[in-house]
């Protein structure tokens, strides 16, 4: 193994590790402790492999691996660039935390079919890393579809009528959009540009008219249904029927972020932000994303079911990142990248808390959670921290993404967008903080149930860890920004 090829091997290792874990997990199906140990070891090894790539990427290298040419245009290859690096780092780190949480949640709830749960989870993570490290649109598409297929059994996990129906919506919407819109967009890109490689500066510049670019952008944005841009968002609330660890890692981090990530990659490396902003073909997307951002927040206000409220909040927060991509200037794109990381830690904490409340007290509706803060003080404190981060207040991580996105809007000369972001922050306050207030200040209906009872220890450890990350990322934001600027600089 020469020094030059070492990072390349690490890339392959990172993609393959979760799949290897998925093969090993069922071998220990009879021994839950060893089975979960396999998941944890895999997750830790994955983080080690991914972090090993950080230094070279920061130094400006772009480690590559693979390169299997299947047919003209279809090349299976990986290449690590800053945005993918960040996404893989976030997803793999949170996988460790989420696995710890899952142990507590799945066992305390006595969920059936836990072995297949962990297997599909590992496959989903492997697919996520594949999406993050994809060198070209085909590889991204391949793992994007694998991610849909591997998470479908997790959505249908309960196997009752509601879970089956939600699973069908999930599959139909995600596979439907990707097949009808995303795939033709890829075919068209290949026919127009003659390559599908993600290239700094884009590959469509000067090769297609403004109208064609606008049309292609629409195909990509709506074809990548995982980004949940309205009106193609309703698979996400439906997917909340899954066990909470799935909602937490997959439907707040891996799956939805894979969508936003793919849109960002397409904007930066396929269209090129120069091409997009100079042709004005992305303007419509700014409006659509802003509408999605506000509407989803309003719907979140009206939802009493906690997970449904969080799901609409996710739809809204994803739209922030899409706005950043649509503005197509260097600052806004970095803001979108930041949003991927900061929203991830915030939203996973909120879902962990929702799951903890369900495990400890079997409560799902916000209206039932009076006085929950007195019974679960640690959980609700973590909920508060994460809420403030989502709203975008210092000293929590979300501050920086909102700030950078606003700067990007100013750079793009769109003060109205800044206004939208501000209004949305107020809406975030309105749908998140009353939950905390009700939990701490309204006395519980039943005084006997007032004793402190937190969720199982693994759940508690996990949600504290992610809440802590919300604070740590506030102070580490500059490092992330440095990483992300590499994405623009090379363009």
């Amino acid at each position: 193994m020469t020094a030059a090829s070492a990072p390349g091997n690490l890339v392959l290792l990172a993609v393959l590790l979760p799949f290897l874990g998925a093969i090993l997990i069922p071998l220990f199906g009879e021994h839950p402790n060893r089975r979960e140990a396999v998941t944890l070891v895999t997750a830790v090894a994955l983080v080690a492999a991914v972090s090993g790539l950080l230094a070279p990427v920061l130094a400006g290298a772009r480690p590559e691996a693979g390169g299997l040419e299947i047919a003209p245009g279809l090349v299976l290859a990986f290449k690590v660039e800053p945005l993918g690096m960040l996404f893989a780092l976030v997803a793999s780190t949170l996988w460790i935390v989420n696995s710890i949480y899952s142990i507590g949640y799945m066992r305390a709830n006595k969920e059936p079919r836990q072995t297949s749960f962990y297997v599909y989870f590992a496959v989903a993570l492997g697919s996520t890393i594949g999406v993050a490290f994809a060198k070209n649109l085909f590889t991204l598409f391949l793992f994007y579809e694998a991610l849909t297929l591997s998470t479908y059994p997790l959505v249908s996990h309960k196997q009752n009528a509601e879970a089956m129906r939600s699973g069908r919506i999930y599959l139909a919407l995600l596979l439907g959009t990707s097949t009808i819109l995303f795939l033709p967009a890829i075919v068209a890109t290949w026919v127009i540009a003659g390559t599908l490689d993600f290239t700094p500066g884009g590959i469509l510049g000067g090769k297609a008219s403004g109208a064609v670019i606008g049309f292609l952008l629409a195909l990509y944005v709506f074809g990548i249904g995982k980004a949940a841009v309205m009106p193609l968002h309703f698979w996400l609330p439906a997917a909340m029927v899954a066990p909470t660890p799935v909602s937490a890692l997959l439907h707040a981090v891996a799956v939805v972020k894979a969508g936003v990530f793919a849109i960002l990659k397409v904007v930066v490396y396929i269209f090129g932000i120069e091409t997009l902003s100079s042709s004005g073909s992305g303007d419509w997307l700014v409006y659509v994303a802003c509408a999605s951002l506000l509407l989803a927040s309003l719907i979140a206000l009206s939802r009493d079911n906690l997970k449904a409220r969080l799901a609409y909040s996710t739809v809204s927060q994803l739209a922030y990142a899409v706005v950043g991509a649509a503005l197509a200037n260097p600052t806004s794109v970095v803001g979108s990248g930041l949003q991927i990381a900061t929203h991830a830690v915030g939203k996973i904490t909120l879902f962990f808390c929702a799951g903890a409340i369900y495990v400890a007290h079997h409560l799902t509706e916000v209206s039932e959670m009076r006085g929950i803060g007195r019974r679960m003080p640690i959980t609700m404190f973590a909920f508060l921290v994460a809420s403030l981060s989502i709203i975008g207040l210092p000293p929590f991580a979300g501050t920086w993404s909102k700030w950078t996105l606003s700067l990007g809007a100013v750079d793009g000369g769109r003060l109205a967008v800044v206004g939208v972001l501000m209004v949305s922050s107020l809406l975030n306050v309105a749908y998140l903080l009353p939950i905390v207030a009700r939990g701490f200040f309204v006395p519980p209906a039943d005084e006997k149930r007032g004793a402190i009872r937190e969720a199982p220890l693994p759940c508690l450890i996990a949600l504290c860890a992610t809440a802590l990350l919300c604070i740590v990322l506030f102070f580490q934001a500059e490092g992330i920004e440095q990483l992300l600027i590499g994405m623009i600089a090379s363009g």
Partner: protein
Amino acid sequence: MIAISPQLPILQIVVPLFGAFVTGFLRRGSTAFVVALVVSWIMPVIAGALLWQTLTSGPISYALGGWAPPWGIEYRVDVLNAFVLLLVSSVGAVIMPFAHRSVASEIEPSRQAWFYCMYLLCLAGLLGITVTGDAFNAFVFLEISSLSTYVLIALGRDRRALLAAFQYLILGTIGATFYVIGVGFIYLVTGSLNMVDAAARLGPVAADQSRAIIAGLAFVTVGLSLKLALFPLHVWLPNAYAYAPSVVTAFLAGTATKVAVYLMVRFFFSVFGVAIDFRALPVTEVLLALSIAAIFVASIIAVFESDLKRMLAYSSVAQIGYITLGIALANQSGLTGGLVHLFNHAVMKAGLFLALGAIFFRLGTVRIGDLAGLGRKMPLTMLAFAVAGFGIVGTPGTAGFISKWYLAIGALDRGWWWLVLLIVVSSLIALVYIGRVVEVVWFRPTSSALRQAADPPPSMMLPILALAAATIYFGFDTNLTANIAAAAAKMLLGGLR
């Protein structure tokens, strides 16, 4: 070995014919099975050697009985038919181990040897159609394969198999008759039955005999469309597939219609296309319209079929639509897509039908209502079904995606946006009928009636797994499939006027 290699084209036919002759005298089913197995496994070796020869040293011409063409019968092997030979013989070879247990359970002992005899005859016929360069000789082999197919279908245990076989006999005979009338027109104009020779002679007389040539083209097209089950001439297929023994269905789905498609491609591009500009005729438009109709109508019917064999049969009609769509596009990417789908669909659909055969072997039924929760009882079988099924849908990472990719590019090269949209939308209909099965077998509670069910014995399991693995393998390595299909497409399009 060196002495054998010039004789390979004829060995491809003589070995299965001789095998059929031998099994015809046998009484015991298992002895006949051994003969059929040995013959089936020799076939892909010969086909592989032929493909190798054509790739390294160009087309092979073999004068039957030493009579020089065009007077004698010529066996002519180029990249295209070597590719089809390899496909047909490989499907036969992979399926054969499955046959032993399946045939033993589905066919009466006294008729088992007879089954293998008919099977080998059918194989010989199909390989003969592919290998020959003589239009009338192709008709003879077409009849050999058809007659043996009627018998094979009628061997099905369900009494409706007799009716299905009879229905196919009527329609298949009409198809063969149309074909031979078309060949008669060509003979009328050129005085030759050798395809290469006839094509060369057609050119000079094209101007003043164009009506006869077009009539010949029309008869051949309609006749072969019946054999390859092009919508709306597909009515014989669902019943034939549904009531035939499981092995027969898998074999026919992977080979019979494919060979008819091959013959159509041969006539379009190597005979008529050389003489006249057939792209100026409405043939491609008609073919395009019928292909799209096949894809949509048959897929939608498949969604509503509760008998899985019938469901897959309608799915086959739809998938044949993709193949003929590629022919109708008649450009490099489109034709490559059609030809590669010929291969990919054969592999995937044979795998699906074998999986159904395994289910039938265990449960005696393939109605979707009886299969709830079967995934936990027959995990490997149902996993293979899901993999091959997603191949039919065209999920990336499977062989089916490669076909759709080439077809979509072929459509865009023509500037037909709407066709790309139709291709991707239609694959979602496939998702519905495949996904429905996956959901029932994996996500429903196992019914108590399935307590005894388990994966079939290895001789049946391995062929199923091999075909499922091939579905994924050919989604990543396309040297054998798309690259050869592209070479064949280039050759075919290069010969066009």
